């Protein structure tokens, strides 16, 4: 599958706002983040007995799916660090009581109508669950139709903040570690389980984004990790030196609402480094991230998605803000 025809999830929050069905008016994203902050919902606390949980994941295209139970509803959630918190598919949570603007936080866009709710219990695995989790409700019907699997929502960033996740995408497995207050694994580790040769890279949680320092052609850039993005994205305003490492493969026209057509480019990034670890020939889509940059007041240069996560074994400690990369 060409990287170009992939989906990034943060966009879903926008795509599937009610405004989409009214004719692709994309001016009012449903889930907005308040400038300078991530989710304004309280971070849910992981509960349960297991210190280490192995989760069998499924994939639809390059989306990472975990099957969970939310109250009485069973279905798949997309692991999506690009979403600030739990987001639920309206199809299955239509009858949940809604509240809006209660937090007065600015998370809810779309004209102030309430689209927030609270679920009593979210069970990820027998030994890992959350209680009383706040969530946004948005229509995700188009996505599950497109992907052919039942998708009941997005497992967003604030659910991960007290966890460490090891990605084994080749084996279809995530290993989740519970963390102590200091951010250390609560599991007594065997020698094999210790991080071993993994290199630790400091990452930053800023404005609800997981920022990673990246180097392309000796230029130091800031990318954020979006586990819900099916491809990597590079900001079109990056410097000439950065684009020297990009080989274009295709240009595609996109029709917006009433606007003239806009261009989307896809290509291959020949080399990128994350703290000395090289990533060769990764799919990349080139986009103008100015709107995102303005919301976050941040100098984001791009987004790292599935093709980054699947390239080599890696783990993220969301509490300490550390990325571990294995050779």
């Amino acid at each position, binding site marked *: 599958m060409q990287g170009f025809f992939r989906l990034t999830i943060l966009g879903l929050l926008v795509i599937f706002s009610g405004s989409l069905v009214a004719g692709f008016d994309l001016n009012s994203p449903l889930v907005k983040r308040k400038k300078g902050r991530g989710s304004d919902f309280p971070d849910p606390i992981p509960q349960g007995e297991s210190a280490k949980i192995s989760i069998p994941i499924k994939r639809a295209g390059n989306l990472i799916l975990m099957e969970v139970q939310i109250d009485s509803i069973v279905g798949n959630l997309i692991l999506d660090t690009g979403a600030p918190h739990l987001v639920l598919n309206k199809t*299955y949570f239509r009858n949940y009581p809604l509240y809006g603007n209660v937090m007065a936080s600015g998370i809810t866009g779309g004209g102030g109508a309430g689209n927030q709710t609270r679920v009593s219990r979210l069970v990820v695995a027998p030994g890992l669950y959350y209680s009383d989790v706040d969530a946004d409700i948005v229509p995700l019907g188009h996505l599950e139709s497109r992907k052919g699997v039942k998708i009941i929502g997005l497992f967003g960033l604030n659910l991960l903040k007290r966890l460490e996740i090891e990605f084994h995408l080749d084996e279809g497995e995530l290993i989740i570690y519970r963390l102590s207050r200091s951010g250390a694994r609560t599991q007594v580790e065997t020698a094999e389980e210790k991080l071993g040769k993994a290199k630790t890279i400091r990452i930053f949680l800023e404005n609800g984004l997981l920022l990673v320092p990246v180097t392309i052609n000796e230029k130091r850039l800031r990318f954020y990790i979006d586990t819900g993005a099916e491809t990597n994205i590079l900001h079109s305003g990056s410097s000439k030196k950065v684009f020297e490492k990009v080989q274009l493969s295709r240009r595609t026209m996109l029709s917006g609402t009433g606007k003239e057509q806009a261009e989307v480019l896809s290509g291959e990034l020949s080399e990128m480094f994350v703290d000395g670890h090289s990533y060769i020939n990764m799919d990349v889509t080139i986009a103008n991230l100015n709107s995102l940059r303005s919301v976050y007041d941040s100098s984001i240069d791009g987004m790292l998605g599935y093709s980054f996560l699947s390239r080599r074994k890696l783990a993220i400690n969301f509490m300490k803000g550390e990325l571990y990369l294995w050779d």
Partner: protein
Amino acid sequence: MGLNHLFNLWSFKKPTSWIFLFLLCLQVIATAQPAKNPTYTLSEGEMLISIPNGCDSSLVDSLIIHYNLQDIGIKEGYQTGNWTKARQLGWVVKEVKKSMILKKSLSELSGLDELKMFLMLTSQQGEINPGYPVMIGPLGVNNFKKSELQPKFINDSLCVFQLSGFTQAEHVFISGSFNNWSTINLPLSKTNTGWDIELKIKPGKHLYKFIVDGKWMEDPNNSQWESDGFNGKNSVYYHSNVLFKIPGYLNAKKVILAGNFNDWNERELRMKLNGDAWELPVYLEDGTYGYKFIVDGTWYHDTANPNSVSDGSGGLNSIITLGKPHLFRLPGYENAGQVRLAGDFNAWNPDELNLSKVDGGWELPYVLKPGNYTYKYIVDNSWILDPSNPQTTSDNNGIVNSFVTIGANFRFVLKDHLDKKEVKLAGDFTNWEASALTMKREELGWSIQVYLSPGKHLYKYIIDGTWVTDPQNPLWEENEVGTGNSVIWQIP
């Protein structure tokens, strides 16, 4: 080689030699220049299209097609010098050093929101119904390493899957096409030697994996697998619906089953001795098949099966028919010379299926596997709808055809509304054709049975011309016209 040769031949003292060498160098320099290919690159934050003057127009065509640049009017500009279209689209066009250069800032690209909408709406649809098995040919036979550990066939709808070992594991699940690949709803129970689970299952092909303490694993006892699309394997199990059996021949060394379901292959389907008979359980799709047994090289028909036809060599082929034939019947037309049937089930071939003349009309019993089909009759050379079937649907070109469901697996019921004149059903399974399926008025409401493929389906009722979502189904989603569609997930 050529240059060395020339240097040897010519004396450099002669002025003519120097002139020749100078000209030669010019030629070498000229030919050493990069090929004049048109290019599309990124440079200094801009998209840059470069078309060298005089370059081959086929190279320009290739560039346009490769990068999808058709809308810019490059070909027209290159041929006529008129670049108005490109300029209207925001491209700056200049001639620089014998090349036409088109530049456009990347900041004109769409924003992230639009980009993502685009990616969503154009993502390929090939992955719909991931992991649902596809039959290649009508026959499926299992291939397990240890027969005592293969799924135990209990009856047509029940079997026991087993996993040997892993007794230290805490949880083992089975996940497959039979449970929509749920990772949590089919836990195995621990036995003395491993794990097992009794499953409700339909005859047919199934894909599955085990999940041992969170880790996916193919069935280690199953030699038959397909790629799971992610560097892993899905194990393949056929839940059989036919047991081929030939009693006796207890001293035979090799007994083979052969039929038109496997092109009469004389080696492929080896039967096993079980007590006093040779047996082979297989899954066969609906249809009519001829077969024989080959006992140590000698062909025999199945004496226990009364249905047989001549094999054309003085012997008999046994015949087995699976599935209930649907009776295509056209009443009347008693003066017609010929009535034929064509539909999407036979690629609309008009010359394949002839109806027989019977009292009061024409008939053809025909076995079709479960599905929704469209068809027409051909009376002499006129294509007509089935006059006795009110169900019709139109194809993408607006051509109306008769519609029939074989092996219906879902019943839509709309309670009440008995004061209405007509209720119809439309959905993705009828291409949203408004006049497609007329529901039947019953004592308590309206109903219709259809076949739904595994996966998600959207539908609506049309009550006396008004489209409504199913009032009895809490699941619905927004649609592009601002109303809603009811949602069903059909389990395979």
